[in-house]
């Protein structure tokens, strides 16, 4: 009885993951994650315009979000740009935020900006 329950739950999990075993799925994702982390180790850091890269890298994340606000305005999304600026203004700085690395989180959000499929538009 317990074996059949185990079998049913396992096959249900396999179906939920699209037929791939959970372990296989995990292994494949782990491999890709390490690949992404380690891929840049052996790349030549002197390639490309180093000054332009460092200028962007040295821009504070709050300024990068303000630059995104500008891009949104240029694209005609004035409302979104204003809401984004407003939320950025609400974000406490330093210790008052209760977090130590707010700027790192903002940096992460800037890197992930636009990486998800756009939300469905309603008519």
């Amino acid at each position: 009885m317990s074996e059949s329950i185990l079998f049913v739950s396992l096959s249900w999990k396999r179906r939920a993951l699209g037929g791939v075993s959970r372990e296989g799925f995990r292994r494949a994702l782990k491999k890709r994650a390490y690949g992404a982390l380690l891929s840049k180790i052996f790349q030549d850091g002197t390639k490309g315009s180093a000054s332009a890269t460092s200028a962007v890298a040295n821009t504070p994340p709050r300024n990068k979000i303000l630059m995104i606000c500008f891009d949104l305005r240029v694209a005609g999304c004035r409302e979104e740009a204003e809401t984004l600026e407003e939320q950025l203004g609400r974000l406490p700085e330093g210790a008052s935020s209760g977090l130590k690395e707010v700027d790192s989180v903002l940096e992460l959000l800037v890197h992930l900006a636009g990486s998800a499929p756009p939300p469905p538009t309603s008519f």
Partner: protein
Amino acid sequence: MASAANANLNAVRETMDVLLEISRLLNTGLDMESLSICVRLCEQGINPEALSSVIKELRKASDSLKTSENCTN
């Protein structure tokens, strides 16, 4: 002592709400749970650029694995 901890908790909650709203406006695809995990990782000193690369790569891998499995079924 307890009131200081409560005040800090409230500050964190408020900050998380603002971060989630910014994340939604930027269309990052992070929900509250994944954002909380990312915040914890950043608090532990993880490089945000490396973390974003891994998140994007995992999304691509997950999509391609699902697509290939759907094709074989």
